[in-house]
């Protein structure tokens, strides 16, 4: 299967007063056309930065990037900003975590939604507004005509997220980056939004990169999962395979930290002790070693490379789970 997006050896560093901050370290990832790939990791693991960098949205003079990104046959990393911009909307689009802050607070929904249509597809103002109304209906917003005239702050969180999805899919993108699309929403609305994304993906034949810290969200919504830790991909496998037969202790720890319904009340919540390593000072060994319950001496001294099972399952661990030594 051909890759719609292929990221090779991407590293992103931020210059900070404390030194260079390594947000993403040598990430390789392939998004096969027509699939949905989950990127999972805790806050600060580099998943958002990775996505924004893949799309070329990281701004600022303090950003150092390396590696190549190839989208749909275009080598984005070799193209000018304007050329990459021409792929936005109809090629790639992104939905953001917090629909409150990702919509312009002072502009009406209609103008924010029709803007992409007019700039990218060259629609007339009237046509764009008609299409905007259809898009709002497509994301199941009732009373679309009135919503077009509203400001973001007049809508609920779930509605705002639907509007953002409508903006992202407006020009029929091939690849949708969904950066924690449900994190800011309450649980019932989360389910509705995920359902909507699933349906839209099928109807519009979009591929999707779903960034989340919630393995539960990944489970029903993705074909592949990449687990990120401290700026690296530490495990990559088809979703069903990952849940059935994980290799990486970090993935196991993430899964264990989800509360189970059959736990007795009063059970302590499982958690991963410790914190992410300092991103300005990555140690020599495995990044997860200090928090890993299986860690041995080697883990603290040598940095593990990604290993590949014959079936394509990737992991970054000296002593993977389920592999006889």
């Amino acid at each position, binding site marked *: 299967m051909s890759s719609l997006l292929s990221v090779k050896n991407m590293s992103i560093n931020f210059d900070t007063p404390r030194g260079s901050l390594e947000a993403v370290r040598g990430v390789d990832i392939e998004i096969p056309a027509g699939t949905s790939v989950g990127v999972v990791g805790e806050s600060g693991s580099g998943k958002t930065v990775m996505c*924004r960098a893949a*799309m070329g*949205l990281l*701004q600022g*003079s303090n950003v150092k990037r390396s590696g190549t990104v190839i989208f749909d046959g275009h080598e984005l990393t070799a193209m000018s900003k*304007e050329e990459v*911009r*021409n*792929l*936005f*909307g109809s090629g*790639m*689009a*992104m939905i*953001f*975590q*917090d629909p409150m*802050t*990702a*919509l*312009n*607070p*002072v*502009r009406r929904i209609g103008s924010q939604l029709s*803007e*992409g249509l007019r*700039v*990218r597809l060259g629609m007339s103002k009237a046509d764009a507004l008609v299409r905007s109304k259809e898009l709002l209906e497509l994301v199941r917003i009732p009373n679309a005509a009135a919503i077009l005239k509203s*400001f973001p*702050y*007049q809508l609920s969180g779930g509605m705002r997220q639907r509007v*953002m999805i409508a*903006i*992202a899919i407006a*020009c029929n993108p091939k690849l949708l980056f969904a950066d924690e699309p449900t994190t800011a929403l309450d649980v019932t609305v989360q389910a509705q939004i995920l359902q909507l994304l699933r349906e839209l993906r099928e109807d519009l034949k979009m591929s999707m990169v779903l960034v989340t810290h919630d393995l539960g969200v990944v489970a029903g919504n993705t074909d592949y999962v990449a687990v990120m830790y401290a700026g690296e991909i530490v495990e990559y496998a088809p979703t069903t395979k990952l849940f059935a037969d994980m290799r990486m202790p970090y993935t196991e720890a993430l899964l264990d930290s989800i509360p189970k319904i059959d736990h007795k009340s009063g059970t302590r919540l499982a958690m991963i002790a410790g914190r992410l390593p300092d991103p300005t000072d990555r140690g020599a060994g495995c990044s997860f070693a200090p928090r890993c319950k299986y860690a041995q001496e080697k883990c603290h001294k040598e940095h593990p490379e990604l290993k590949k099972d014959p079936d394509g399952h990737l992991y970054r661990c000296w002593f993977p789970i389920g592999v006889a030594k």
Partner: protein
Amino acid sequence: MSKISFWLQRIAQLLIVLLLVTFGVSLLLRLLPVDLATILLPVASEEERVALRAELGFDKGPIGYYLQWLGNFVQGDFGKIYFSGGTEEVSDHLKEAMPRSLLLMIYTQILALVIAVPLGVLSAYRSGRRADKIISNSLFALQSVPGFAIALILVIFLGVKFGWLPTLGYAPISDGIWEHSKHMIMPVISLSLGLIATYTRLLRADMITALREDYVTMAASKGLSDSRILWRHVLRPSSMTLMTSAALSMGGLIGGAIVIESIFATYGVGFEIFAAISGRQYIALQSSVAVIALFYVFFNLVVDIASGFVDPRTRDRRVNA
């Protein structure tokens, strides 16, 4: 609360402000340890002074005096300026001075905003880079030169050396736009340079904050050009501090431009007040201050209304509060 009742309440608040300001000034006059009638009529008989006290209400208590002054003021009677030879109406003076001051203020604000907004946008967009450093440093230098110094430099070069512009006086619009502008250019530049620096820095700071917002990244992800993002998405939500600052500087520009008005002999309200103080024309002083307060409050109301259009959140927040 509906929008109409909100604005009625806002206008009522402003009226209260006006009453307090004018009453304060009025009270100050009564607290002066002098006999106002003697000051206004230094060479006059006791009978004339008694008549004046009765006419102006000096014989009443402070509140009685204020109410009488207020009654006259709202009917357009701003009192008189007293000379040894007779009197002149304060309203005639203000009728002459007010348009000068208002036009000076409006031109100054327009010039300052027209220059400061693009500079602020540019320096926020290029923040930390060379263009930003050049803009910020030159504005900082400019801001530390007082307006009168700039005025004098302008007079020396544009007025005296090259002789392009008249160095003194004022020409009303009825004398022709060109004649009018020639007299206004130098005072307006002198007044606006300091404001340009202030406005640019305020806008730059707010825009840098706004540029870090998710909605800017969102706009970029739609494939919009940088200039469209800056002008259509970032400028409006970043302009509230700028608008507030512009509103606050209006009072200063109407009544406080005395130094510039004197240099260019553009005798506006600031100069009227200066003349009233030095000539101890207390009635003229009181009425002039009241007129300035009136305009100040009016322009702030206009900015209030405008800010509701610039940022609809403030409008609804106020209405729903």
